[in-house]
């Protein structure tokens, strides 16, 4: 214990140096947080749609591998599914991409239009329990206020052109843009059909994007899924909401190199951190060579000295982590403001970076091990 205390005293003795060391470590910590933030931000943005579905099981086209793609299947299949034992109720969701004309400057952007039955929406919008009843009025939409700024300055009452229709914003919700679409709107089925009135009305009404099923209390999701697949023709697939969300999160990592890019970025940040921390430790040992050798002379062993050095590394890591975390909060806010990418810091993610930071300290201490072992008290003379 006294060795840890000694390490602490050695660290805090030289305040300017400690400050500089902490800032160096904080720098590495911030880089790690940024890499993780971007990575999670992409995945979270991609998975945002899955999170608002009010369903225990989700049916979709067999080949649909993410919720932003446009494969559709027949609403008949969904209606058949409602009859399968264990299923209590269900909703369906239309979804299709369309163009939105910016009400201010007339520029055009792609967004995803979700079509719902306002009486049975199957969506749980984040924030307040927003009633979707206003959507019963044809020509109204709910607008995702976290859509990109390029879509214009939109509020309740704003009118704009969406696809083939003129629509009015009747309400707002929070979802967030992603890499496929600049924004989202929700429309009642009636309005949805108007927006896509260029398409064949029969087909438009039949092809749904998702079938949302709610199970009876106590029903086993796995068993019901199997029954669904057995009982109905195999042109669809079904998964639980949790499975869907996991798939959505993994989709970006799987389908694009962002996982590799940011994963590598994280590793690089970690390595930078190890190098910085090792440099700090190296100097610390170099400045205390005679003291350490003296301790060795009077009967301390390499492991004692190593404990001092490791304690210094870990204390330094924690001391650097704190300002790094503070800076991260500020930077995340700024990035969300600027890019509308969700930069979410959960306790788990903070702990993960803290763990990496401690790992960084431990690794840099391990690199200094040789320096400590090589210390020969006979050289003091």
């Amino acid at each position, binding site marked *: 214990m006294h060795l840890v205390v000694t390490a602490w005293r050695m660290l805090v*003795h030289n305040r300017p140096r400690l400050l500089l060391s902490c800032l160096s470590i904080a720098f590495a910590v911030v880089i790690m947080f940024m890499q993780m933030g971007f990575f999670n931000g992409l995945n979270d943005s991609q998975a945002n749609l899955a999170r608002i579905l009010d369903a225990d099981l989700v049916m979709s086209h067999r080949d649909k591998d993410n919720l932003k793609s446009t494969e559709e299947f027949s609403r008949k299949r969904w209606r058949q599914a409602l009859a399968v034992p264990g299923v209590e109720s269900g909703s369906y969701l239309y979804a299709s991409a369309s163009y939105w004309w910016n009400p201010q400057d007339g520029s055009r952007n792609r967004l995803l239009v979700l079509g719902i039955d306002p009486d049975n929406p199957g969506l749980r919008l984040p924030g307040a329990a927003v009633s979707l009843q206003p959507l019963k009025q044809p020509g109204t939409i709910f607008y995702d206020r976290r859509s990109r700024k390029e879509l214009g300055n939109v509020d309740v009452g704003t009118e704009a052109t969406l696809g083939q229709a003129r629509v009015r914003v009747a309400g707002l919700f929070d979802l967030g843009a992603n890499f496929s679409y600049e924004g989202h709107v929700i429309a009642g089925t009636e309005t949805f059909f108007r927006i896509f009135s260029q398409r064949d009305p029969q087909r438009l009404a039949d092809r749904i994007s998702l079938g949302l099923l709610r199970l009876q209390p106590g029903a086993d999701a796995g068993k019901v899924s199997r029954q669904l697949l057995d009982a109905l023709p195999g042109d669809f697939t079904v998964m639980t909401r949790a499975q869907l969300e996991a798939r959505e999160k993994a989709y970006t990592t799987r389908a694009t190199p962002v996982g590799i890019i940011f994963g590598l970025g994280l590793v690089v940040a970690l390595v930078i951190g190890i190098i910085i921390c090792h440099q700090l430790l190296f100097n610390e040992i170099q400045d205390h060579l005679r003291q350490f050798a003296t*301790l060795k002379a*009077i009967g301390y062993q390499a492991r004692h000295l190593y404990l001092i050095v490791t304690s210094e590394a870990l204390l330094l890591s924690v001391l650097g982590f704190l300002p790094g975390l503070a800076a991260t909060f500020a930077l995340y806010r700024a990035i969300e403001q600027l890019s509308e990418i969700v930069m979410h810091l959960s306790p788990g993610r903070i702990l993960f970076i803290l763990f990496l930071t401690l790992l960084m300290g431990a690794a840099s201490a391990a690199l200094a091990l040789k320096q400590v072992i090589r210390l*020969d008290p006979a050289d003091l003379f």
Partner: protein
Amino acid sequence: MTPPALPADADAIIARDVSYHFGSGESARQVLGNISVHIPRGQVIIMTGPSGSGKTTLLTLIGALRSLQQGSIGFFGTELRGLSLQQQVEVRRNIGFIFQAHNLFESLTARQNVHMALELHNLTVHEKQRRAEQLLSDLGLAQRLDYHPGRLSGGQRQRVAIARALANNPALILADEPTAALDKDSSRDVINLLKQLAGEHQSTVLIVTHDNRIMDAADRIINLTDGAISSDMEVKRTLYICQFIKNCPIFQGMSLGDLTDVAQHMELQYFPSGTGIIRQGDLGDRFHLIYRGTVSVSVNRNGVSSNVAELKSGDFFGEVALLREEPRNATVTAITEVETYSLSKDQFLAALRNHKSFEEQVAGTLFIR
């Protein structure tokens, strides 16, 4: 409180035929050759010699900081030859090290620096506190317990380092140029305190130094030259002898170094009261300096013996017969118990031969007598 108890009867250090090389094969360089030295407990020894003489190497061997290559060193009864690194560490816990630089942690206070040496020993926090405070107070640092080294003077820092070295009651204190960075007064202070505390704790002290200012603090001075012991003398005895024989006309004008050489070859002899030390007519074989007691000088002329003088401690006799290669011209008898430092005839003449103005001195002496 001293770690593994050391046998009470063993001598501090007994080195036998210690040789040491740096490098190996063709490039091997011998720094110590067949050093044998015996250090009893409680002595304060100064080891001196030119740089490269191997004194520091010997210090590190005795301190179990290097492994022995040849020869043996008994450390309070423990053989150092062939110890594992772990065992060396354990031996070192009985040693207090003092270095040329104080090697204190700048980030720790005086008290905390002393603590570092106490942590390896099983003491309660309270005991450690008390011991550190006691030592620092003994060294005159009671008002500086919580000062960092940066706020202490050079002498004070070295005293903290001494406190650290003494912390675990070491059986042996090894000091390497402990006064090199200090001014004259601080040097004296530091060395006197070291001596005093070592005395109180019955520690043996071995100091490697070039510093002439502290030579008189030693009980014994060992001089190393080219990896061999070139002289080994007990300081008090040598000082005593030199002080008196320099008054002897034969040795007048001799350099202190030559006098020291002579002193080193003198042996202590004991004579009970009434013993004849020299008898008139015998062949002269020794020169004597009286260390303790009184002798009478009597001359026998034509069967009549008459006392011509009484000699006391500090007086000397017996040189004339050696110089003239003649029989003794007087009888010297111990009146009390007498101890003399005496020099054999061969040593006596050898010493004089080395002296430049030998012939003059002989003539001068004979003229005066």
